[in-house]
């Protein structure tokens, strides 16, 4: 997908010109100056969603020189060599006691206090006012259970352009962070030898790198106040990205008002209060008197505070990211992504406490919970940059945008110093369209302990992990005691792409290390340097039993639904805010293949019930990592059979790669909370073009109504309208 490094000057020049030309179109589209419909009318975009094949314009043009689809020149390295910078640990967000910290104090319903609006915002006239909070107003979007689960921790973040980090908190000592001095300011760049990013090119949480880590524990609700400090002027986006935001806590068991619904976005100058109760699913029906020690939260003295709910629903590794309708890929790529570690009685983040409940996974011992010493978050993402070293993105690559430079925690091919002991790595695929398949360069075993947010029923020992689709999280344990001090081993990507639709070939380790792959994303991307023995003996464990699945056998299935993910989608609606346009779509219960419309209700399962959903890949030339919001699901079958479900997918999940021509059957319940949620491809290019649907739980009783009104945000406030469409099988 990238031109080879030895491409001719003429070929590179043509490709660069094509990139500039289409960048202008990207800019106009992303800034709202033209719509996809406009581009179709003027003949630059096909009804199928692709930019027309025109030499010197289209990324898909088979140019006179470029035989590779995008024909994009390689991202220049400015002489930088791989594995010459330390990998930064995540930047831990400050936890503040609440009530008392946030001003104004959070409210159950959206805070509609008016403020004078900046006239640079679209549709704003001088003197216009709008609410300070962008959350849709009224009881339907009020925080559910706000009075019974009031916030005890406040975390306040901004979204803003790139700036130097002067408050880095890795949560560990410098010796456990490859020698990085947290007091040294950190500008936003992918390597010390690469250019500093322009504030319009990179938009991150707090405007800084490394990416942010949220720490939580069960029974301790968090109020996550997100301030939008992006430019008021929609055209000030560096050529891609949209300044409106909606933040998804993936895959929180929260009310829909906190889920980052794609149509519940907020504007620059506003904030949005997300209330994360952090409860065990089923907390209103199972173990309601909180008598089971396994359903618990770590207290500050090494003990357990029991909480209601089913301990089998305990979750561990989440992440949070932007979910702006039609702009998720651009905004996440620009930096709107962080991770969220949730601690529990079982997954304590303390490897020393031996109380018969704590699983004692690799972590550390100093704190009662949440030790990060040997519990490391890794966010993998492929990036690309232009001749000036500035981040580059191409929204017209509707197959899926691929970068040619692999980053870990926003650092280009770094190294990480480790001790001779066990480490837990929480690995997130934070890419737009790239799948990874990971192995150690020497083929050494790794133990997979979790898939997505959930610890597995039993650990699985592997030498090569399965493909990891976008948004999937794999928690693994690597025991570095098998190595000697001074040795080095690399993490290697085996999944080779030709385009963004799916990996074209899973390579052997030797093939991936050979350097012969045309995909620059293949091969070594993270170097582990074994630097010393641990100061204390490694007492961490990987128990043979982790978290068995909840037993659903006694819960009747009331409904089965089928969702097929494919191409050739139609869009019967013309609402310029709610409906998207693109080649990708979803067919519900054998209906029409439909492009996304967040005003359309595609499914409305009943509150408190269980259903079986089958997710089908409608083609053989692509794969889709399908994400279902809100509830963790159990995988019943792949291609119709349970025996096709590998051991590492036998726990709960929230993202499934369908595989080419494949299907997955899952079961899920709808408990505790209600509102409108989503289901979509997490290849965010596919999601934005327009493989996403809305489903909702709307029969929980007041204030919910069937169907739910659709929010239409504006700077002056959110209005509501009736759904554009309700599919015949929705209810």
């Amino acid at each position, binding site marked *: 997908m990238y031109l080879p490094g030895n491409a001719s000057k003429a070929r590179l020049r043509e490709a660069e010109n094509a990139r500039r030309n289409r960048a202008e179109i990207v800019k106009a589209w992303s800034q709202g100056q033209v719509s996809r419909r406009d581009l179709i009318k003027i003949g630059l975009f096909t009804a199928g969603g692709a930019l027309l094949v025109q030499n010197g314009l289209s990324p898909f043009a088979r140019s006179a020189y470029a035989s590779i689809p995008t024909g994009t020149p390689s991202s220049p390295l400015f002489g930088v060599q791989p594995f010459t910078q330390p990998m930064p640990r995540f930047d831990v967000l400050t936890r503040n006691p609440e009530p008392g910290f946030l001003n104004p104090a959070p409210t159950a319903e959206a805070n509609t206090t008016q403020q004078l609006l900046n006239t640079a915002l679209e549709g704003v006239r001088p003197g216009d006012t709008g609410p300070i909070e962008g959350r849709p107003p009224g009881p339907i979007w009020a925080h559910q259970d706000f009075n019974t689960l009031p916030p005890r921790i406040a975390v306040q973040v901004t979204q803003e352009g790139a700036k130097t980090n002067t408050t880095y908190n890795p949560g560990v000592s410098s010796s456990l962070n490859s020698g990085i001095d947290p007091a040294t300011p950190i500008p936003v760049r992918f390597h010390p030898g690469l250019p500093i990013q322009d504030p319009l090119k990179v938009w991150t949480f707090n405007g800084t790198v490394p990416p942010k880590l949220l720490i939580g524990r069960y029974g301790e609700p968090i109020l996550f106040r997100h301030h939008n400090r992006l430019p008021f002027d929609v055209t000030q986006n560096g050529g891609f990205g949209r300044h409106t935001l909606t933040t998804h806590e993936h895959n929180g068991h929260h009310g829909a008002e906190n889920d980052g619904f794609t149509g519940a976005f907020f504007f620059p100058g506003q904030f949005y209060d997300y209330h994360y109760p952090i409860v065990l699913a089923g907390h209103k029906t199972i173990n309601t008197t909180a008598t089971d020690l396994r359903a618990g939260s770590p207290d500050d003295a090494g003990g357990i505070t029991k909480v209601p709910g089913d301990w089998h629903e305990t979750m561990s590794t989440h992440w949070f990211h932007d979910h702006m309708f039609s702009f998720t890929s651009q905004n996440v790529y620009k930096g709107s992504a962080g991770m969220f570690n949730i601690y529990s009685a079982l997954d304590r983040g303390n490897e020393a406490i031996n109380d018969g409940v704590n699983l004692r996974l690799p972590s550390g011992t100093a704190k009662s919970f949440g030790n990060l010493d040997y519990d490391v978050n890794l966010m993998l993402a492929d990036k690309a940059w232009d001749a000036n070293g500035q981040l580059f993105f191409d929204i017209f690559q509707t197959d899926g945008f691929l970068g040619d430079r692999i980053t870990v925690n926003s650092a280009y091919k770094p190294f990480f110093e480790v001790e001779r002991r066990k480490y837990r790595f929480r690995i997130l695929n934070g890419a737009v369209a790239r799948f990874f398949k990971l192995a150690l360069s*020497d083929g*050494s075993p790794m133990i997979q302990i979790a898939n997505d947010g959930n610890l597995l029923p039993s650990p699985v020992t*592997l030498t090569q992990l399965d493909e990891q689709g976008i948004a999937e999280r794999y928690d693994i344990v690597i025991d570095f005691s098998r190595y000697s001090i001074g040795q080095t081993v690399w993490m290697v990507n085996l999944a080779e792409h030709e385009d963004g639709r799916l990996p074209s070939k*899973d390579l052997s380790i030797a093939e991936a290390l050979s350097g012969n792959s045309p995909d620059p994303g293949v091969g070594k991307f993270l170097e582990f340097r074994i630097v010393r023995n641990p100061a204390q003996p490694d007492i961490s464990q990987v128990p*043979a039993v982790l978290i068995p699945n909840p037993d659903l056998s006694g819960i009747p299935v009331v409904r089965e639904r089928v969702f097929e993910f494919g191409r050739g989608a139609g869009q019967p609606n013309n609402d310029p805010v709610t409906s998207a346009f693109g080649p990708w779509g979803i067919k519900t219960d054998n209906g029409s293949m439909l492009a996304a419309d967040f005003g359309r209700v595609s499914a409305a399962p009943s509150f408190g019930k269980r259903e079986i959903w089958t997710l089908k890949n409608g*083609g*053989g*030339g692509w794969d889709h990592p399908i994400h279902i919001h809100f509830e963790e699901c159990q995988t019943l079958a792949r291609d119709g059979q349970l025996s*096709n479900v590998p051991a590492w997918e036998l726990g709960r999940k929230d993202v499934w790669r369908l*595989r080419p021509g494949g299907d997955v059957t899952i079961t899920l319940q709808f408990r505790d909370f209600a509102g409108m949620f989503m289901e979509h491809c997490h290849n965010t290019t596919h999601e934005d073009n327009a493989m996403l649907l809305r489903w909702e739980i709307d029969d929980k009783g007041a204030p919910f109504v069937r169907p739910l009104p659709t929010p239409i945000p504006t700077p002056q406030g959110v209005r509501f309208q009736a759904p554009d469409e309700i599919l015949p099988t929705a209810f």
Partner: protein
Amino acid sequence: MKTRRPLFTAVVLSLMVGIAGGLAGGSSPAHAIVSIASSGMNTILYAGTVNGPPESVFLAGLAQIRFVVVRDPDFGKPPAVRLDIDLSNVFGVGLTTGTRYVTSGRQNLIRPLVATDVVDITFPFFPSGPGGFALARQALASFTVTYDVSTGRVTSATASTAVNVAP
């Protein structure tokens, strides 16, 4: 001084290989999805000895290869093969201690459909019993799968070699 670990210590071992049941399960028409050209399952007798500390281990058993050949009528790209290689029915015996070993190797791979595809995978093996997985070592298995490209069906599959991986 930094010492780089060797990638694979390629010790080719004596090996007994055969196909149990030939194309067990055979190639069958796929279910109704138009993009699937064929699917089926092969079971291959796999055996070999992996050397290295703490002891050499004789591994033997049935490797199961499930394949699904998928077409791409939308973009017209060449067909691909989804391979599911399951080595969980391969077991081992420690040649010094008699310790029983198990494997947990299963790989889901996407590969281009070519007449002959050599697929190398690593897999872990470890002592059976509680906590054994934490003592896992690794081995390399190499499978040669031949296809009738015109029909997209497997014509043969063999485990052609096995090598140690550096301990």
